[in-house]
């Protein structure tokens, strides 16, 4: 009887510690995803710049083409924007982009500052000549580079911390419950 109880206790403690360690790991993965998605967005913005300045594509077509070339969550963002622009549902690019961001928000790990950088770009898309848009692209890319740098520093600082914290809190809980 007593042996069985200690067995259950030990198993319960192991389950708690493993679960909280995994929670720490999963949370630290989010930081990695943020850097990955920001890099993906930077690449997409470069491609959008090419589409506009070199191919002279229409904005919905340009969005569609960069959506085809980018990876999972980011391509959905541009696909949605392209669809909304094709359907003429919104007055300007900014509102279409904003609504697209809201639809795919659950899959994006980037934070509000990063989203603002893209939305700032969409405010001027299609509203000036190529030179003006080029300037805006340069500004956006430099802002994105800054955000990537910040997120990389943040990732390197915190990724280990979240892992250790997950394990420590699990162990703490297990000790308190024994």
């Amino acid at each position: 009887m007593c042996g069985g109880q200690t067995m259950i206790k030990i198993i319960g403690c192991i389950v708690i510690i493993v679960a909280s360690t995994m929670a720490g790991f999963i949370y630290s993965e989010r930081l990695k995803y943020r850097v990955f998605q920001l890099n993906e967005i930077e690449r997409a913005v470069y491609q959008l710049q090419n589409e506009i300045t070199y191919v002279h594509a229409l904005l919905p077509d340009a969005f569609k083409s960069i959506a085809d070339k980018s990876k999972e969550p980011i391509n959905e963002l541009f696909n949605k924007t392209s669809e909304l622009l094709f359907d003429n549902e919104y007055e300007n690019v900014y509102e279409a982009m904003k609504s697209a961001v809201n639809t795919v928000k659950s899959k994006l790990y980037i934070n509000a500052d990063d989203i603002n950088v893209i939305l700032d770009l969409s405010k001027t898309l299609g509203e000036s000549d190529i030179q003006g848009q080029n300037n805006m692209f340069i500004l956006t890319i430099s802002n994105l580079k800054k955000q990537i740098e910040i997120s990389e520093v943040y990732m390197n600082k915190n990724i280990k911390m979240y892992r250790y914290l997950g394990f420590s809190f699990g162990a703490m809980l297990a000790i308190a419950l024994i």
Partner: protein
Amino acid sequence: MLDVSLLFKIGATGILIIIIDKVLKSGGKDDIAVVANLAGVILLLIMVINLVNKLFTSVKTLFQF
């Protein structure tokens, strides 16, 4: 006889609090480290409050003639 397992529990909790404090401080989150320390101290107090209570009642009975 005093229950020795409680002493081990307190020791292990103390070690874990030190680890959490170190990890949080190395991550630059000093304010959260302070909160975690406080939470650990409160946790330990909750663990020993029964013993403290027992001590006080026994002292009280000692002075009741």
